[in-house]
């Protein structure tokens, strides 16, 4: 009996320890073994001439991103070039799906095992900076002033939070007008609209209710969708110092922009898909259902794979009453994370990504450079031209950690006016009150 019990206890102890060890192993190293480690074995890292400037101990940087397949392949080339120029520093990358990315970053930050460098959506930088998760770069990154001197002001401004910069503008994009030539020909219109008045008139000329065809369509009511029209009409969300929204988001220009969109919707010239659950703008535009949409440079590659016969036509966003065009800035920033143990090397890598060489390499796969000096460079794909021109006037969304909530307030106001629950003025008055509360 006694020995029997002893054996049982021994067995159960073994089971216990095995389970505990198994349970501890993954918990202890949550971020180990990145899925897509990319080292560049082809490049000789022992360049002897660079030895004096090299960091003493070899450093391996973790770089997180959400690049697409072709972009990731190109990024490997950029890393190879960087490692060749900086012996002693290696870059390992981990790729995430966009939808999982924020959660992954938050998990890493809260567990304390962060990547050294990350590519972030421009709308997230102030939010993460406000959490104290990012390293301030001005005054710390050598050559910071020189690097930002050549960058576009719109993308650069997305890195600023409370008078300091927490990132560098890595790539940029904006939205321009896409017009379906076949639809325009059928409606007897020869050129894309140059002014917002022409835009509104064309949208209705291109509409054919019997064929369920609409002149203009937006992907939704979130701010990104009406933003180009909003900014071109002179709309503003807050004052420049981000202290108040009253008089801005409900100012006369902002109200005029949304009134024009609401009128187009009421007349049936703006497709109802923006309220949710309709034909997607990209497919609808290629099939001729939507005469005009407003979208970004990635549409070229999307159409290349989904609608290879469709000819994409870009045009600048039509000018508003003041005679000026504008649009909204999109893109990504590169940031160094607080908690990185290799901040010096991390900043080197971040700075290298902003170099003309790296920017040109990424441009060939559709990543628009943030360097003004590369505009019009022969290495750029030709369709970049219209986007680069638009970027000169494009505006960034409010760089504020509560931007997500502000976006929501405008989104809801847009919904209420489209459904006829409120006039544009009433809806935006309410949005102004809500945003003011966020700014306190």
């Amino acid at each position, binding site marked *: 009996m006694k020995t029997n019990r002893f054996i049982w*206890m021994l067995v*159960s102890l073994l089971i216990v320890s095995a389970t505990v060890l198994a*349970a501890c192993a993954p918990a202890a190293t949550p971020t180990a073994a990145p899925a897509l480690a990319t080292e560049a074995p082809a490049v000789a890292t022992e360049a002897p001439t660079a030895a004096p400037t090299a960091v003493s101990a070899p450093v391996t940087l973790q770089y997180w991103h959400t690049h697409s397949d072709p972009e990731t392949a190109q990024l490997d080339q950029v890393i190879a070039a960087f490692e060749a120029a900086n012996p002693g520093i290696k870059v390992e990358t981990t790729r995430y799906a966009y939808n999982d990315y924020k959660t992954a970053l*938050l998990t890493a930050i*809260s567990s304390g095992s962060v990547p050294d460098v990350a590519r972030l959506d421009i709308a997230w930088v102030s939010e993460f900076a406000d*959490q104290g*998760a990012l390293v301030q770069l001005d005054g710390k990154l050598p050559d910071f002033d020189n690097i930002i001197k050549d960058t576009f002001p719109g993308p650069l401004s997305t890195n600023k939070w409370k008078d300091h910069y927490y990132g560098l503008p890595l790539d940029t994009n904006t939205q321009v007008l896409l017009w379906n030539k076949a639809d325009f020909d059928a409606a007897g219109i020869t050129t894309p609209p140059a002014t917002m008045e022409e835009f509104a008139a064309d949208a209705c000329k291109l509409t054919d209710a019997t064929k369920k065809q609409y002149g203009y369509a937006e992907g939704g009511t979130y701010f990104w969708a009406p933003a180009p029209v909003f900014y071109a009409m002179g709309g503003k969300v807050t004052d420049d110092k981000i202290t108040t929204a009253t008089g801005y988001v409900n100012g006369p220009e902002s109200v005029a922009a949304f009134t024009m969109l609401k009128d187009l919707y009421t007349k049936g010239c703006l497709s109802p*898909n923006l309220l949710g*659950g309709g034909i997607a703008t990209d497919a609808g535009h290629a099939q001729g259902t939507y005469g005009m949409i407003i979208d970004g440079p990635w549409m070229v590659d999307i159409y290349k794979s989904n609608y290879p016969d469709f000819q994409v036509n870009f045009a600048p966003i039509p000018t508003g009453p003041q005679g000026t065009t504008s649009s909204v800035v999109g893109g990504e920033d590169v940031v160094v994370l607080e908690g990185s143990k290799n901040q010096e090397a991390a900043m080197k890598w971040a700075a290298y990504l902003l170099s003309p060489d790296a920017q040109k390499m990424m441009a060939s796969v559709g990543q628009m450079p943030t360097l003004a000096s590369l505009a019009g460079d022969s290495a750029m794909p030709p369709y970049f031209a219209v986007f680069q021109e638009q970027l000169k006037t494009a505006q960034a969304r409010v760089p504020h950690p509560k931007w997500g909530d502000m976006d929501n307030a405008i989104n809801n106001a847009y919904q209420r006016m489209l459904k006829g629950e409120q006039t544009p003025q009433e809806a935006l008055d309410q949005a102004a009150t809500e945003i003011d509360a966020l700014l306190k």
Partner: protein
Amino acid sequence: MPTKRRYSDLLPALIFLLPGLILFILFFLGPMLYSLRISFFAWKIVHPDQSVFVGFDNYQRALSDPIFQRAIFNTLAYTVITVFVKMALGLGVALLLNQNFHGRTFFRVAYYLPVITSWVIVSLLFEYMFNGQAGLVNYILRDILRLIPKDIIWFADPILTLIPIILLDIWKGIGWAAIIFLAGLQAIPTELYEAARVDGANSSAQLRYITWPLLGPTIVFLVVVLVIGGLNAYVPFQLITHGGDPMDLTHSILTLMYEATFGRIDFGYGAAISYLLTVFVFFVSLIELRLMKQQAA
């Protein structure tokens, strides 16, 4: 020496329980208690030590937030409707499948198939079917049945959006309820029916006086499990409403919790929402069990 003996009996049992217990504490109880702590703070994820203690602020904020109230309404409506319909139809299907007929196995498989299909795929499928401009449902209602004069934009309306979500859950859940009912039905001894027939009871009397009372435990089990599942609804809401579209009026409690936590980095608020849900589910389950016990007595 009775106590000593009991203790030495307990030790091996404890050791056998330990692996499970450790996992439970490490991955369930620990995080649960930690998130209880988070729910009382304006939580800073990078510097938890700088988090500000706010007492019950997060809870008060949630309870006075119209979006949270709306999420409660949506979740309750979804739960009440889907649990009732799934159980009624599930029982009907189980009674049919319990008969002896040709092709019974085929029908059992057919009813269970939706249960094992992926939530993600069928959610997307329902989203396509209810598309406002090119959807199958509008086509049938408008062009074939001519019931509606113009296309309904389902996902533009916070109430109409719940229809595909509820239909999806019912369609997907009938099979599971039916299988559980079927197991309950087959546990009823056939002698009871034979005796009833001898006594001259017709089939509706058999259903009323034999099947229904003897299914009591099965019904309790189904109500408790389905209600808890309903209150924890997440996947169809998230996929079909994209997190509360339009206007944050179509959140379930869990999609709102997810958005607060990971969308707006408001960990304290998200933790408070999950605790409100936990307490609510706990009391609802208690009441259910009590009521069922009373009914059975």
